[in-house]
């Protein structure tokens, strides 16, 4: 089943008086449970594609469907709840809320929106996530007391907190050294298997690209190559 569908998607940015075509017509289908890498040099449109899948940016042409729902006509409020329900985000610069500790940062998305989790269940779930990303020791530390890798682990746990269908990660390893970066991708892959959550991440690091099941190569706003591998074949 296709959880994400991009149809002839185009994106034009105004840059001063010039119109910059970031995405020039992309068709994509992403299956549930996939572990996908969007690869390409900087400026190829990776982030733009991710933003449109993540419903934080709208295409100027074509359609984006998330779980069968077309995002083009949606209002800000609906898009926000769609993001909250279906999507998790991992950012290049972690974007944790600085005044909240590890536990509270992971809890934060659970405190938004209408349907709240039962208190005890929530508590156990967050503790489980903390355990999963290996931060049991740092539970009550603030983000500025953590290393980059640890911060990104918090972000991963936070992205998974609402049990989303899709987790989007925009260059999650860009601010980390290569060993830590690999560890992060491995963690994402592990969670992808365990939670059956679709992960889509962008990167320009060939070493990390190779871990993905499904690699989409972008160049100048166009898909130039798509590679699919058998599940688990890419796992090391």
């Amino acid at each position, binding site marked *: 089943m296709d959880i994400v569908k991009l149809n002839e998607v185009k994106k034009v940015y105004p840059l001063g008086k010039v119109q910059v075509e970031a995405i020039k017509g992309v068709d994509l289908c992403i299956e549930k449970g996939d572990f996908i890498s969007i690869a390409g040099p900087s400026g190829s449109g990776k982030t733009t594609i991710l933003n449109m899948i*993540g419903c934080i940016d709208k295409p100027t042409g074509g359609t984006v469907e998330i779980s069968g729902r077309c995002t083009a006509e949606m209002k800000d409020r609906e898009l926000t709840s769609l993001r*909250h329900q279906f999507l998790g985000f991992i*950012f290049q610069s972690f*974007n944790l809320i600085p*005044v909240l500790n590890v536990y509270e940062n992971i809890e934060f*998305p659970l405190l938004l929106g209408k349907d709240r989790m039962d208190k005890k269940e929530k508590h156990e779930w967050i503790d489980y996530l903390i355990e999963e990303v290996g931060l049991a020791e740092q539970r009550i530390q603030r983000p500025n007391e953590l290393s980059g890798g640890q911060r990104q682990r918090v972000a991963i746990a936070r992205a998974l907190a609402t049990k989303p269908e899709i987790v989007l990660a925009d260059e999650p390893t860009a601010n980390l050294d290569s060993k830590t970066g690999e560890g992060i991708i491995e963690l994402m892959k592990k969670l992808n298997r365990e939670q059956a959550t679709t992960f889509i991440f962008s990167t320009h690091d060939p070493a990390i690209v190779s871990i993905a099941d499904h690699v989409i190569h972008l160049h100048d706003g166009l898909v130039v190559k798509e590679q699919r591998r058998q599940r688990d074949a890419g796992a090391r």
Partner: protein
Amino acid sequence: MPVLVKIAIRNLREHKSKTLIIGIIIALGITVMLLGNSLMETAARGVQRSFIDNYTGHVMISAKAEGDLSLFGAQGPQTGNYEIPRIPRYERVYEHASSLPEVSKAVSQVSGFGLFSFEEKGNQFGILFGIEPESYRAMFPNSITITAGRYLEPGEEGILLSESKIKEIEEDIGISLSPGDSVLVSGIGPMGFHIRELPIRGIFHFQQNVEGLSQINIIDVQSLRALLGMVVASAGQMNLQPEETRFLEVEDPEEALFEDSLVATSESQSGDFSEEALLDILGERQPGSYTAQIDRGAWHFILLKLEDEHQVQPVIAKLNSWFAAEGIEARAADWKTASGGFGSLAETLQTVFNVLILIIAVVAIVIIMNTLVISVIERTGEIGTMRALGAQKRTVRRMFVFETLSISVVFGLIGVAVGAIVIGILNATGVRAPNQFFQILFGGEVLHPALPLSSLLYALGIMVLIGFLASFYPVAVALRIQPVQAIQAE
């Protein structure tokens, strides 16, 4: 604790200097506002109290006139026009007003200006309140304190001079007056000067020693009427016939004064109508010759005291509509009108002060707003992230409004506390009026400021308002932040 409250409070703690800047502005503003308002309000209340209790009562009835009539003259104190119109159909007005259920006491008064003449040595100016001793004392029992001599007896002629007038006369003219002496008083009326020699019965001071009011001297009403040329027939009052008294009730008394028939009444008394002759007649009047009945003569004012202070406006409205219905050219007004410029001084100052506060508040709002906008911009990434994670716009709004409100409430309360302590200290020690201007303003020499609930609520209201207004623009800026900016922000 809700997470937004947690984030807001931790952010405030995290950015201590910013919080302090905003907080101190708010606290200081509130303290100044509270203090100022308390002083002003206490002063205004003091002035009101002292005027109502000592000079004006709650309601003043006068004839209709162009401009405001006050007890001190046709305009403000000391600058007045010399002609105050008398109340038309006085008797009927008095009976109606004093029989109203809300009215507890009523008294009538004539006001005028006089010169105390000391031959070639000079003159002294004074305001004269013409009264009927018994009813006036009943109305304002604590208004004056006699320091020498005695109070006026009913029906006797004479004058009570204020202590400060005695002092002025002594300093400027070099004559030391005491009870038992006589003083030559000239009154200025529509028919020119009228001069009488009046015995000084006593020396007094007002309970509230306000400099501007020390010009007031108390005189028996018959003498004042004679001085003002109001009552040519005063000496014949006891045997006036109804057809003669009607001249005192005519709509245009000035015109009536020049009618032959009135002059004829005078002539029947003296045969030769002249100023001296009139004085002779009036001078012959003996104490005790007064018949104890309502003085039906001409009066300028009727002052009313009410059972309940809150009834002032309804009673004024009631009276004015009665006047209109009866076709009487009279008017009821409140103590502020009666007091002339004195009463509204504190109020005017309070208004000026509040305008000043408003300007300060606007400046404070701008500073706070600016600081908050900077803080919003600094947190663009954080807000974008929240939005990306599924926080609705209203959540972001709530977070910032809560942040500003908690600063303004916490520091506002600090401001209130500081203000209240200062007021408490000032209340205990009292603020001494540094000069005459402040004496008038304070309604006395020493002010003991209190903290009226209204000032407190006003301060709290302003505090919340500042919080809301100051967060308006920053919140708008925060709401413009798109989730995509979570990615763009580094």
